[in-house]
């Protein structure tokens, strides 16, 4: 989402839009990888081992995506 739009209107991009995108990345990362961790815990018979790992991976992945899409570019 950073191609033409950023080039033509970097200064005009709405803070609301940015906030919405960042929020969806953070929620997506936590929900997906947290969910994978929870399923792994349930399937392998652990209690609270893979869930925090999954949440951590999801958070790091989300922050990395935000960095790639909105900071580095």
């Amino acid at each position: 989402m950073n191609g033409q739009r950023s080039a033509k209107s970097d200064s005009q991009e709405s803070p609301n839009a940015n906030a919405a995108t960042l929020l969806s990345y953070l929620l997506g990362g936590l929900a997906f990888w947290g969910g994978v961790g929870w399923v792994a815990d349930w399937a392998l018979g652990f209690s609270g081992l893979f869930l925090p790992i999954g949440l951590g991976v999801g958070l790091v992945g989300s922050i990395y995506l935000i960095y790639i899409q909105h900071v580095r570019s």
Partner: protein
Amino acid sequence: MGADVNVVAASESGCHIFGHGCGFEAPGVGLFSPTPWLDFGLPGAAGVNKYYLVAAVALIIAAAFWYFTTRRAKVVPGRGQSMAEMLVGFLRDQVTRTTMGKEGDRFLPLIVTLFLFIFCMNIMGLIPGLQLPVTTSLAFPAVLALFVFLLWNIVGIRRHGFGGHIKARLVPGGVPAWILPIVVPIEALSNFVIRPATHMIRLFATMFAGHLLLALFAAAGFYMFNPLSQMGALYGALSVGYSAIALVGFLVFTAFELFIMAVQAYVFVLLTSIYLGEAIEGAH
């Protein structure tokens, strides 16, 4: 702009401050479940209720606005036509052009229609006698957000082909291949589930909370108004003072809510425009 009809109806138990000792009953989510006039007994359906009426009124107001402001359009615009032109110009300059450039002009009719329709649905919360914002029913923002989501996909697929659109939405550019298994599911969930969901919930939740707050002030004003208190004239006067404070709060928050109604309609169409701009643009 009087007290909410539902609130007053709910408060007809006669409970007042400095009265019989019964407490204040705050308005709850029951405000948003009006009694159905026609119920077909369909599972998960609320039946034909007040939401149908206020949605129809909102639609008529939006349509009437365009009819009366543009039916005798002239080169030198009158007051109504100027207002319509200002609205279109504002949305073109602040929404479609800033997010999609000149190409956004193609979507301007959609954006203008969405904005006015959502704004009209929102202001139904302030129309005396109706006082129920249509967007406090999750179904209405959900359908609008679903429509935008479908359009976003259609525009992307028409522009870049199915594979191109899906790839653009799932695979972020400049990411090493070994990180892709981690970030592609996040992109998928974010773009195809969470974004349309937050698009819908933002509008719904803001209007829901705002209307509940107004109802609370109205109910509090009613509860605290007890000039004929059995506890004496002093308490009666005190209750009138309390009630006046609640009334002032009600008026202030009504004005604030009007502003929020416009802002939420604007945010909805701004996000719509940004999503469509992304679909046109394609790859990251």
